[in-house]
């Protein structure tokens, strides 16, 4: 599944977009966050990390599909 990465999170991961192959058949937003933070420990230093699924904020319980567009949203600072 495609994961977009922005702002401070992009600098932690080192790229703005990557493919993620989940282990097993099912994955929730919360499980994805946990798996990513094991692979990229720098993410834990962010003040917060939200996940957007198909351009909307998603809850931790939300189940992900293979063709969802995921985005990692560090704390926003527009305006």
């Amino acid at each position, binding site marked *: 599944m495609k994961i*977009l990465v*922005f*702002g*401070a999170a992009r600098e932690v991961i080192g790229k703005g977009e990557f493919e993620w192959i989940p282990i097993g058949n099912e994955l929730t937003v919360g499980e994805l966050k946990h798996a990513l933070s094991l692979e990229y420990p720098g993410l834990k230093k962010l003040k917060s990390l939200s996940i957007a699924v198909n351009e909307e904020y998603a809850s931790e319980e939300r189940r992900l599909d293979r063709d969802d567009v995921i*985005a990692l949203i*560090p*704390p*926003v*600072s*527009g305006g």
Partner: protein
Amino acid sequence: MNPTAHIKLEGNPLDIAELTAAIRSTKNGGECVFIGTVRDNHQGKVVTHLEFEAYEPMAIRELTRIADLASAQFKLAEVLIHHRIGTVYPGEAAIVIVVTAPHRNQLFDACKMIIDQLKETVPIWKKEVYTDGASWVQAHP
């Protein structure tokens, strides 16, 4: 998109005269504008410029949602939100919000609500560049 919402992420300087005139009309006498200008300092550091980055399709979606919510809640005629992306220098406007209505009563609360919500949820990120480094501003939450 609600036809009364005018939303844009803009790579070029914002033209205040043009944007404040865009939704003014002889039917809607009251107009409130918020302009957020880039400051040249932050917590004692000299800011040379900002780099704004957006998750563009989602930012447009969120801004439209906020504009529609404000329109309905405060009975606005029209809403305009233009936000800069890319490099923005001190003294330049990073954001311009314009709201209009036949009467003025709720304009100010509407404009405040829009900028408050924008800063909380819209996926736009600001990197401050100083004379001696740079840092992502982690404002909300």
